[in-house]
């Protein structure tokens, strides 16, 4: 007789905790070493070396940075709104991490006779014989990523500083306008997949030896979504909320110590999430050659694709200078939104003709 808690076997809870821990540690480590990788990659792209002193080729640099920030003095400006000032970094950080809950990072693996789908918010129903996950996974991600803007706006407003306020305002305008374009551009994908569940979207891309990716059917949507995502997470070339040349450090000007580090972690965690989401929607998620026969290859393909996209973000950062604010708004409202709408119409007509 199986031991049940709330109608679910004990193994379900063990697997769930294990998945959460593994995914969380993976994201945290990637965040830490993304900072290192970024400094190294951009360094070499500028024919420099990047960090070299802490540890072999500077490998301990993220740890040293973390320790340094941890022991720095916490400064709260006397005119700041203290509660909002304290809560803002958390509001920025938490949505950045919890979006990872619905992203499938592998197929279904079997541990001690119990099938575990490699996606945090999912479980394998033995009676139905299929994986159940949140059937509106993408909607959840869009909701969470738009929550992140509150952290930045609140940080900008609560600091009671002109630079911070300008940064916060820019962030809100930018994130909201690019969210529209990003949301519209992935609608074309849902028109092909017919579902919002991440697991099924990945499953739909498993054809042709694991290469039936939506990027080949929707290249325009892929490019638009990736660019809009970069703009939405405030990365160069769209990092206007923290434009150093104009706004000192934008919304995090008044922040110090660990709270400043939290904004940085949120930024990098957002980058990972966006790259993971792009991988899932367009690059076939964990699909690849032989991924269905060897389930453990799935996470390898997934991580490889995500890291490639992260590398691409860094590559872009080393290449493209920051856009001006009016150019940013022009691209968002006058180029991407009409293009995304056109893409939806064309996809709709195409689907109708095929049927």
């Amino acid at each position, binding site marked *: 007789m199986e031991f049940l808690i709330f109608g679910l076997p004990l193994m379900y809870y063990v697997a769930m905790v294990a998945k959460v821990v593994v995914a969380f540690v993976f994201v945290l480590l990637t965040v830490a070493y993304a900072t290192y990788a970024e400094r190294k990659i951009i360094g*070499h792209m*500028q*024919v420099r*070396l990047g960090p*070299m002193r802490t540890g072999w080729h500077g490998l301990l640099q993220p740890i040293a940075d973390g320790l340094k920030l941890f022991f720095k003095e916490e400064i709260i400006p006397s005119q700041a709104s203290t509660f909002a000032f304290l809560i803002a970094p958390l509001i920025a950080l938490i949505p950045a991490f919890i979006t990872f809950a619905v992203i499938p990072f592998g197929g279904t693996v079997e541990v001690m006779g119990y099938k575990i789908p490699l996606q945090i918010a999912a479980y394998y129903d033995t009676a139905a014989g299929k994986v159940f996950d949140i059937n509106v996974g993408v909607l959840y991600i869009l909701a969470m990523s738009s929550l992140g803007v509150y952290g930045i706006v609140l940080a900008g407003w609560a600091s009671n500083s002109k630079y911070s306020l300008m940064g916060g305002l820019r962030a809100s305008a930018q994130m909201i306008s690019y969210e529209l374009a990003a949301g519209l551009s992935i609608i074309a994908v849902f028109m092909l997949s017919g579902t919002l569940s991440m697991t099924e979207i990945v499953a739909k891309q498993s054809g042709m030896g694991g290469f039936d990716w939506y990027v080949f059917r929707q290249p325009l949507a892929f490019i638009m979504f990736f660019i809009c995502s970069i703009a939405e997470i405030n990365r160069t070339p769209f990092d206007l909320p923290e434009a150093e040349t104009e706004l000192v450090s934008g919304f995090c000007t008044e922040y110090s110590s660990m709270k400043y580090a939290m904004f940085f972690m949120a930024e990098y965690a957002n980058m990972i999430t966006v790259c993971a989401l792009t991988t899932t929607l367009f690059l076939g998620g964990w699909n690849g050659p032989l991924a269905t026969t060897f389930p453990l290859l799935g996470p390898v393909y997934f991580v490889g694709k995500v890291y490639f996209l992260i590398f691409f973000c860094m*590559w872009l950062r080393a*290449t493209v200078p920051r856009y001006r604010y009016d150019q940013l708004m022009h691209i968002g409202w*006058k180029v991407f939104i009409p293009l995304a709408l056109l893409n939806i119409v064309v996809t709709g007509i195409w689907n109708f003709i095929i049927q």
Partner: protein
Amino acid sequence: MNPIKTFVPIINGLKITLKHMFMKPVTLQYPTERPKVAARFRGLHALNVSHNKAKCVACYLCPTVCPAKCITVEAGEDANHDKFAAVYEIDMLRCIFCGYCVEACPVDAIRMTGEFELANYSRKDFVYSKERLLEKK
């Protein structure tokens, strides 16, 4: 907006940055790696030695030509009734390392070395006396 005009420069830029990534970095890991000092580099001065004493005859040409007025010379007379520099000081805080003193010297008594790490803790340590200048081989 012309998509070709927008994307082609970005793609060209991406190519350049990728090419640079595989180039040898120009960074010099300074304290562990030393820079190659050029043969005619103008660093710290040194007084040349001949027959176990400084070649300087205290002719005052170097303090005269010095545009920064950083050289102090006082002449003395030794046992053989020869003129020599009893005091020879260079104030490194004022020196502009122009090398005019080397050019002006008629007896080749002063030269400039490749030493460039001249930081110090107090102002008086920047005034190099004759003994310190002689030590520089």
